[in-house]
């Protein structure tokens, strides 16, 4: 099997997903994973598509673009060569929240301090509403980095920026927002230290 990563960006309109998936289907591809969002009126999607034989990325890009011509799609296709490795092996997932006055460079500075500690950001959503800035980030902490230690650093960093910074383990949000049984340990690591505790 041959996998390609397809990304598409365009001004949001009705029918884009229909066009993109239609092109993939015509080319004989199967979608293995997909994530899509709309930000300030702009649609963006990333897909992992599997084919039974090799494809020319350029041809694939052309096919998607042509099928969605009326949407003026920006399309990019790269082959998934299976070279990706887990950036934080054995890490646990935490939610980082930043709230405060909007100011330039906040995300850059926070991302920099996380990168220095080996923290891998896997999901990030930030927005400004008037002068208020909010950011919610999902990130993997390396096992050797204690959350209390990082929390202290980030709070101090936040204080310097005049912002509130909170680091909470994912389990807190799973417990409070999902009705399934409470889990302790690493909730997404069934082969690791995961403990699913039935009631």
């Amino acid at each position, binding site marked *: 099997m041959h996998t390609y990563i397809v990304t598409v960006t365009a001004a949001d309109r009705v029918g884009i997903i229909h066009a993109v998936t239609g092109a993939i289907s015509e080319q004989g591809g199967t979608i293995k994973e997909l994530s899509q969002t709309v930000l300030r009126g702009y649609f963006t999607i990333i897909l992992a598509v599997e084919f039974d034989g090799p494809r020319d990325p350029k041809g694939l890009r052309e096919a998607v673009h042509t099928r969605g011509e009326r949407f003026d799609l920006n399309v990019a296709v790269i082959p998934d060569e299976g070279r990706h490795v887990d950036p934080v092996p054995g890490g646990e997932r935490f*939610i980082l*929240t930043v709230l405060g006055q909007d100011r330039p460079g906040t995300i850059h500075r926070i991302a920099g301090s996380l990168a220095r500690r080996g923290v891998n950001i896997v*999901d990030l*959503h930030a*927005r400004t509403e008037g002068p208020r800035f*909010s950011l*919610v980030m*999902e990130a993997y902490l390396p096992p050797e980095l*204690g*959350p*209390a230690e990082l*929390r202290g650093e980030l709070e101090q960093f936040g204080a310097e920026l005049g912002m*509130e910074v*909170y*680091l*909470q*383990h994912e*389990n*807190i*949000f799973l*417990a*409070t*927002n999902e*009705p399934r049984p*409470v889990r*302790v*340990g690493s909730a997404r690591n069934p082969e690791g230290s995961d*403990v699913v*505790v039935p*009631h």
Partner: protein
Amino acid sequence: MYRTEDVLATLGMVRQHKLDVRTVTMGIDLQSCAAPDVATLCDRVRHRLLHFAGRLREVCQEVQGRYGIPIVNRRIAVSPIASVAAGHDTEGLVAVARTLDATAAEVGVDLVGGFTAQVQKGWTEAEKRLIEALPVVLSTTRRVCSSVNVGTTAAGINMDAIALLGRVLVDTAERTRASDGFGCAKLVIFGNAPTDNPFMAGAFHGAGEPDCVINIGVSGPGVVKAAVEDLVRNAKVRPTLGEIAEEIKSTAFRVTRVGELIGREVASRLGVAFGIVDLSLAPTPQVGDSVGEILQAMGVERLGAPGSTAALALLNDAVKKGGSFASSSVGGLSGAFVAVSEDAALAQAVACGDLTLAKLEAMTAVCSVGLDMIAVPGDTDPETLAALIADEVAIGVINHKTTAVRIIPVPGKAAGERAVFGGLFGEMDILPIHAAGGSTAFVRHGGRIPAPLSSLRN
């Protein structure tokens, strides 16, 4: 991907509304420590506490660090000492209490509960001795908490024990006169006591429990109050009481889940059983951390006014429903506490004359505890205190629920004067007891009030 709104809602509970794990309480069975000589008994008690609770402080700190949820107190609840120390004299009982006190300090817990006797149907020699030893124990130890169960729906009410406890309260108060009778704040007198309650002063490790268990007391009056306030403020149309109950339920769900998460993690790290989460709205004297303020948010501006009981009933029931859905391991008391001196809004309502002892008694018929942290005049006679206990226990026994009494006769002070207990125990104006001394003969009859009928329930 989490919705930003969900993340902020959960975060807000911790950040703004003082959600915390009020107590991680380790229950430890001490039955195997029984020994014919006191020194051996005390030595066994100490070693067993060290064995199970030696890492409690360290593990709680680890879990607090991992989750960023404050664990405010660590506590230990032990088997009723009246059974463990049966056969020993008063000096022996006091020695056990001092061992508990010292070992609690050694392992870094602030209170240890279980200096307890269960005498609802009658008392053994040991249980009577334990109750008689209470004034000495409560006035000479710092961390030891006591409870006495004097009634159950199945057995009735032991009025002899209640009469003795009236005298014990007066003696204990006198011995702790300098702190406004504070020794009495460490004694809870129960009807239908739960065996797995993690909250002090009434925690003990009851029959049917394993060797060691972790029980969690979660609180969150601030969280519930904020949820009700937001609902009322943001709704375009005034919300109905049914809608308010739904809001409390969903908030209770979230609070309970946090407690269960922390409890299971602590238990797992210590390698002991997880017991229950007790979601009780336990107030602290801090503004914003008050059960009274929840009732005010529901529209009962003057606490003690007609409607207070109905509002409290709604609150208590909604908390239980939300908690029950969140976890199958809900136990203990799980409801709303109306601990007067510990709740700034309730204490204020007493000070301005809105909230009376009679109204509090009515409210306790629908809440989860009873007459809790209530200062009464120091010259109240023992029989009147006993009668007050009997009334409260009767409410629990007849209604198949737990009730408890924690009253403090404040030596040298009269109704309207200020009693100050300090810290989380708060302060309040001393409440008068109406018609005090008017039921002495009733109490002096003694004996047992028979168990209530369980049929013809109308």
